[in-house]
């Protein structure tokens, strides 16, 4: 603590605080314009000046001066008043006072400050500057004539988002915010809009639609990726006006901030559909639900309870997914269910579980008193202990405390933007080192201390090389490790030279990576869905789990594994037990059911053991599962498919009954983000005729005579959380496993597959991956804002490859694999190495998975046309 006096009052403040922060804590108002708590001090406006003794004879900016023992600070005096008034006049000298039409009116910090300081008039004259508005850019409108040159937007874009897309041009009085050349070419995250104190940056979605004070604000979890952001949803007259401010940090990504109009998409389903005479026809809810229940009963009576196969949803809430598995386990009495995470995230969990063991929690007891809504009934006590894979998963807030981060097989920002924000924060510490190992140049290569470019699909071998180098250096694991000898044996034949040859990464770089990891006090490993979607994704995860067992320091905050759970509830759908082999909280089940890929294979073969019916909670299998042809063939053989979705997806088009569901804030519920945070989604919009997933499942169950919990999401959560000691201590915005859990970690080094060959002989390798502006197919519906930035699928290609094929930007290319053929326009991208082409997975047309077999990598031939 530091003792000082502020305005004659003796106070104590925290060490390392600025005078401004201290004043804010103490409730002493100091005017400010450029300071923002989400940023480091900028010190541009000087409106926050205070008098400080001892110190120089001139006033100092409170936002950039640190508290010191014995200091005497004066925050208000006639001298300071004069300075502030003069500064405000200078700020206002060329400010277009357009308050009546400016979107910021009512929440403008300049309005408030002009009022607080009491600027009577601006008695200064100056050359009028040209307004230079930018109406052209997408989503963001710029009014440089309203800019107070505080620099906040530039700092958030550079230091938090990492895009560096805007900066000042010219200088002094003529300083103007610019993107270099109109229009803006950036990540379109909109973070600069919300941090601007004035109306110089405007959200085009919000412009002229509402005044700031007319909206109802609801804080909610973002329903797009697994990042777990929370934001304010602003609603007027039952309509969304905008998404505002990602909490204290302000940053959000573009899909979070601009993606909400999917709620209003005209192609959303409004009524249930039933297949009649081969066509999907509109029906009433009762007709549709009665039909589903009757058919389900008929099928189970004829073919047994396991004849219905369920696929849960990484989009739907925990509550809906929990009810869904209850419907199968308690109602039908079968474990025949799974979720689409099978192709990505579940592989990570399996790899981690093989090394660190199953989830085990001890020492937590049910609290008999009633916990608040959406809060776990298990308090975390001193005896609480956790074992197994969930306890090596990291929290994003801790990532900046890691000192070495290895990124493997992940273009971080499109995969999970908050991981990228955390890496930028980590970089602010000098000791921090970043290692990036990808098959192409990505955003974070710019920030990497060691950037390795490996051949597509050889990431696992590269990890093996790093492990080999570590073993040669005889590192001693910080975690109790068994199986060391067998493991060493499995790598005996591997040489670094061989690894270097096959991966394309130099031996020296592999050794340097091993060195950095061996010396790290808190190493972390990030890997993406991109790495997990390879056919041997589970082996990839296994290799990284082994690596973490060797170098990890799980006692140090931030030292953890960070596999990307791509959608808002990819992690939750697994944890609440929509899995054939585990119930809620990863409790093993007696008679495991079949996994999704097996079921699709059985269906395709027309096997007698194949299910007679599929019940799909969202999840467009036809679009996202690899091997489109097989999936299509399989689905077409199912006698009865029920799909619950907001849109008529490719899969829904093959269904017999389609039930339209509520999305976004039309329903209440919770999600588990990629890092285990419980996101709470309150209901802020009316459902307009569609129903929340929970209600639909419940109605089908009760028509079939099953009793499963009801009474709304809060009640279902209560029932669910009782089955989840793993969630002990969990509450909205809190993260599991809780930090105060004792960890009892040990692991076994498990040998993994070293064969990284990619079958086929076609000349190019296609990678099907993520686009920054999209999340699944959810964001591909008009009028979604993110869709305006990336409206279609384009095939990224190295310029030299394109030239060799006689293709230029925008040309149509014919892409052929052993599985199929598509036509797609190309875009030149020098970040891709020669030989690698990239196609985003989100769009229905062209269907990327028409080319894939069992992996997101496939060999292709490309020609003009």
């Amino acid at each position, binding site marked *: 603590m530091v003792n000082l006096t502020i305005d004659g009052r003796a106070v104590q403040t925290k060490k390392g605080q600025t005078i401004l922060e201290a004043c804010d804590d103490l409730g002493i108002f100091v005017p400010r314009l450029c300071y923002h708590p989400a940023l480091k001090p900028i010190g541009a406006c000087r409106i926050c000046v205070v008098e400080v003794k001892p110190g120089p004879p001139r006033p100092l900016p409170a936002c950039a001066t640190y508290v010191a023992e014995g200091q005497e600070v004066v925050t208000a005096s006639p001298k300071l008043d004069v300075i502030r008034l003069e500064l405000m006049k200078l700020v206002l000298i060329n400010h277009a006072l357009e308050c009546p039409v400016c979107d910021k009116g009512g929440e403008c910090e300049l309005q408030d400050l002009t009022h607080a300081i009491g600027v009577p008039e601006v008695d200064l004259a100056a050359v009028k500057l040209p307004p230079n508005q930018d109406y052209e850019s997408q989503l963001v409108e710029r009014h440089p004539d309203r800019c107070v040159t505080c620099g906040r937007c530039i700092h958030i874009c550079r230091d938090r988002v990492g*895009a*560096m*897309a*805007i*900066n*000042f*041009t*010219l*200088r002094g009085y003529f300083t103007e915010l*610019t*993107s*270099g*050349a109109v229009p803006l070419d950036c990540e379109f995250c909109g973070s600069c809009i919300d941090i601007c104190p004035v109306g110089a940056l405007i959200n085009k979605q919000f412009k002229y639609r509402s005044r700031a004070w007319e909206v109802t604000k609801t804080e909610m979890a973002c329903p797009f990726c697994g990042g777990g952001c929370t934001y304010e949803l602003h609603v007027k007259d039952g309509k969304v006006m905008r998404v505002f401010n990602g909490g204290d940090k302000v940053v959000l990504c573009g899909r979070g901030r601009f993606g909400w109009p999917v709620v209003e998409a005209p192609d959303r389903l409004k009524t249930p559909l039933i297949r009649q005479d081969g066509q999907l026809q509109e029906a009433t809810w009762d007709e549709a639900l009665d039909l589903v229940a009757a058919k389900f009963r008929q099928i189970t009576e004829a073919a047994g309870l396991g004849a219905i196969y369920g696929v849960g949803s990484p989009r739907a809430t925990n509550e809906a997914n929990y009810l869904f598995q209850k419907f199968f386990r308690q109602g039908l009495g079968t474990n025949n269910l799974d979720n689409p995470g099978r192709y990505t995230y579940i592989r990570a969990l399996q790899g981690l579980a093989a090394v660190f063991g199953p989830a085990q929690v001890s020492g937590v007891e049910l609290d008999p008193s009633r916990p608040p809504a959406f809060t776990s009934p298990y308090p975390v006590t001193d005896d609480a202990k956790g074992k197994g894979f969930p306890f090596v998963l990291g929290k994003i807030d801790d990532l900046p405390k890691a000192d070495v981060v290895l990124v493997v097989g992940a273009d971080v920002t499109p995969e999970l933007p908050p991981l990228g924000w955390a890496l930028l924060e980590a970089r602010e510490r000098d000791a921090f080192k970043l290692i990036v190992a990808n098959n192409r140049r990505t955003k974070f290569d*710019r920030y990497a201390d060691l950037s390795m470019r490996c051949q597509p699909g050889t990431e696992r071998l590269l990890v093996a090389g790093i492990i080999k180098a570590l073993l040669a250096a005889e590192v001693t694991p910080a975690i109790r490790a068994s199986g060391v000898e067998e493991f060493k044996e499995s790598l005996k034949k591997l040489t670094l030279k061989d690894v270097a040859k096959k991966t394309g990464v130099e031996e020296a770089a592999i050794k340097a990576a091993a060195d950095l990891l061996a010396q790290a006090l808190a190493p972390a490993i990030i890997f993406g869905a991109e790495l997990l979607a390879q056919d041997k994704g589970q082996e990839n995860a296994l290799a990284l789990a082994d690596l973490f067992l060797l170098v990890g320091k799980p006692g140090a905050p931030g030292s953890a594994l960070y596999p990307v759970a791509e959608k808002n509830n990819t992690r939750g759908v697994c944890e609440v037990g929509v899995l054939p082999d585990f119930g809620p909280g990863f409790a093993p089940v007696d008679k495991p059911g079949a996994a999704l890929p097996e079921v699709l294979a059985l269906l395709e073969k027309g096997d007698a053991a194949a299910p007679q019916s599929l019940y799909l909670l969202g999840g467009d299998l036809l679009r996202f599962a690899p091997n489109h042809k097989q999936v299509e063939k399989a689905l077409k053989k199912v006698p009865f498919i029920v799909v619950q979705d907001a849109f008529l997806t490719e899969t829904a088009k093959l269904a017999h009954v389609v039930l339209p569901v509520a999305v976004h804030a039309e329903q209440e519920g919770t999600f588990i983000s990629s890092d285990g945070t419980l996101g709470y989604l309150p209901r802020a919009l009316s459902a307009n005729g569609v129903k929340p997933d929970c209600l639909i499942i419940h109605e089908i169950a009760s028509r079939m005579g099953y009793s499963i919990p009801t009474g709304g999401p809060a009640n279902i959560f209560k029932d669910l959380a009782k089955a989840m000691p793993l969630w002990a201590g969990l509450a909205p915005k809190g993260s599991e496993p809780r930090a105060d859990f004792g960890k009892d970690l040990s692991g076994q080094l498990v040998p993994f597959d070293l064969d990284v060959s990619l079958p086929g002989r076609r000349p190019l390798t296609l990678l099907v991956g993520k686009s920054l502006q999209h999340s699944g197919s959810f964001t591909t519906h008009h009028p979604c804002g993110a869709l305006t930035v990336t409206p279609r699928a384009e095939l990224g290609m190295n310029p030299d490859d394109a030239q060799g094929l006689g293709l230029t930007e925008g040309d149509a290319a014919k892409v052929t694999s052993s599985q199929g053929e598509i036509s797609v326009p190309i875009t030149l991208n020098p970040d891709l190495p020669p030989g690698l082409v990239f196609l985003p997975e989100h769009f229905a047309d062209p269907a990327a998975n028409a080319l894939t077999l069992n992996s997101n990598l496939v060999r292709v031939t490309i020609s003009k046309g």
Partner: protein
Amino acid sequence: MKKSQKTIESILAGYPRHPQNLIGLLQDVQAEYNYISPEHLALICDHVGAPLTQAWSVATFYKSFSLEPRGEHEIKVCLGTTCHLKGGNRLVETCERDLGVARGQTTEDLRFTLDTVNCLGSCALAPVVMVDEDYLGGANIRSLKKRLSKLE
């Protein structure tokens, strides 16, 4: 104006790929081509790994960089305090009329660029006009016109 001899590639090749070389490259390109074209700006950014906006910001911050083609001859009329008092303004107006170009601009035929500056550091000679590398001290309308006509 010097004829451009060095290609952009050879200029780039002279600098390691590091953001700290941004200003050096901008200076070299400015010296060689008399201005920095959007294409060259993009190439420089690619080379040093700096975002385009940063290069733009630097290039517009310093007066010695120009993002637009400059004329063959550069005329800088001083409007610093001393020259201003000694009638610098009339000299600018003369140039504007004679060359048919506004201050800060370049003639369409790319022959002349007219600029004003805030003190050339030669106040004793005020009013001062700089024509290319030469100082014209104690300038008046007549001597200025004469000097300009020599250029044509």
